[in-house]
């Protein structure tokens, strides 16, 4: 095997599967360890005496913040649950699409059952629909528009592209380009996601649960409601 080797006349697909993916993984791992390491090392010892159970408060907040707060329910319920919906779609596609499972199986060393392709196609279309709706909402809603940064839009794009390119490659809607090229673009879009992941808002995937716990624990320690 010529893992990660270049050879003369290498196609875009060979480049995507080999060197591009290899470098994307390297940048991803460096970025993740750096960001998480820096966060862990920045924590300070709190010398004050606790006014409540930090663990209990942490776990409670972790759970309560996973549903929309009652006071804001009317305004954010749509965003909240569509957010859940597309994330579920993403995980179904990622874990139960056969080619995706085989990608992970190659790393993990074991396989698991997958779903027939019509299911995966359904979830992909629904997920892309939700993502587009959420983007339109972000651009139309004055408050959301005001608080959105380039990071939000770029992270959206980086998250959306793998669904789009994967769907186009699978459905053979290639606009005149070769199927292999579309498949390569799909893999390259995942490489882009891996590279951007540690440095933008996609990093929430790793810090969302610890940060909710941490906020809850800190508030509980101070004896206030999170």
């Amino acid at each position, binding site marked *: 095997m010529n893992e990660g080797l270049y050879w003369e*006349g290498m196609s875009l697909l060979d480049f995507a599967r080999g060197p591009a993916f290899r470098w994307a993984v*390297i940048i991803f791992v460096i970025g993740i*360890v*750096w960001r998480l390491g820096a966060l862990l090392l*920045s924590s300070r010892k709190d010398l004050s005496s606790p006014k409540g159970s930090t663990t209990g408060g942490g776990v409670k907040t972790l759970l309560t913040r996973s549903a929309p707060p009652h006071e804001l329910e009317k305004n954010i319920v749509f965003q909240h649950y569509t957010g859940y919906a597309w994330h579920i779609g993403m995980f179904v596609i990622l874990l139960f699409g056969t*080619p995706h499972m085989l990608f992970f199986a190659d790393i993990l060393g074991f*396989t698991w059952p997958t779903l027939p392709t019509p299911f995966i196609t359904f979830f992909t279309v629904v997920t892309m629909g939700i993502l587009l709706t959420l983007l339109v909402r972000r651009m139309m809603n004055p408050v959301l528009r005001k608080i959105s940064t380039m990071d939000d839009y770029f992270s959206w794009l980086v998250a959306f592209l793998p669904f789009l390119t994967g769907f186009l490659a699978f459905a053979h809607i290639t606009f005149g380009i070769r199927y292999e090229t579309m498949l390569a673009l799909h893999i390259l879009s995942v490489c882009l996601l891996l590279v951007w992941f540690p440095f933008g808002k996609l990093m929430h995937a790793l810090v969302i649960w610890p940060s909710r716990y941490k906020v809850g624990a800190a508030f509980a320690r101070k004896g206030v409601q999170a």
Partner: protein
Amino acid sequence: MAASKTVGDALRSNGVSRRGFMKFCAATASMMALPPSMVSAVAAAIEKARRPSVIWLPFQECTGCTESLTRSHAPTVESLIFDSISLDYHHTLQAAAGQRAEDAMEAAMEENYGSYLLLVDGSVPTGDYEAYSCTNGHTHLSMLQKAAAGAAAIVSVGTCAAYGGIPKANPNPTQAAAIQDLVKDKPIINVPGCPPIPTVITGVLAHYLTFGTIPELDAYGRPMAFFGQNIHDRCYRRPFYERGLFAETFDDEGAKKGYCLYKLGCKGPITYNACATLKWNEGTSWPVQSGHGCLGCSEPDFWDKGSFYRPLSAAYWGDAKTVGISAAAGAAAALAASALARGKQKKAQQEEKA
């Protein structure tokens, strides 16, 4: 046989019936994606075609391409059609040997200069390694250059001639090159495959006999009529792929039921060839039907694309060592960032105290 005899005369003298000939023409027209109305035109063109002089040069190869063409159990109409070209030089198939064979080639080249068809199988060593592959004291590079100069067109038979094939596989010890990389001023038709399907070789020749031109080619120089379709799209096991039914090993229940071989490394989704439609051994079977995934042998650099048994979607993501080094680099960056932050914090505290 004299080069002036027509293909029709040659077929009749070989006992091919009109019905057998028309069946061949219909199949050929269909393979070339021509409308049924073209069958009679194909028949007329082939029948009247003057047998073109063909010189077949084998270079750095395994003779598998020639075997593919000749090892049929019974003489077929295709093989008779092949007999009906004037094969003036093919050192495996011709009776003459040594200097007499060389003389025959020289004579054919001289007599048909500018109009003969040059068929090549095998790649050509170049640079410092040019002398690694010679015939009768001539390097294959010099033979190619000489033969190509007088050829009307060149057909690269097999993946080695078309793209360098196995001799060119990393680290390419003989600096092997494909014909299309060495000859730039002649029309070249690539008929890749390891080996190519015999019907495809004869089909390309039939096209040349019929129209006197080279067929429509794809981005890799392959005739669209035979290489325009994806193996996966034409595979009879495709419905199992859609339903998520796969063979997990070569002898499990799924394999016995003929489920999709994608998980076992089948390269059908990125391979273009006519195996799934024309099949091999007179339409008997083809690799996927016999239970093995497609190797992608008609694609450039198929030998360098990793294990044949690695699923297509498994990327070459690296290894534990690379990930470990990356993690260590990330940890070092985190420590540095943390030290920098603490330093700044300390400085700010001291300034506040002051």
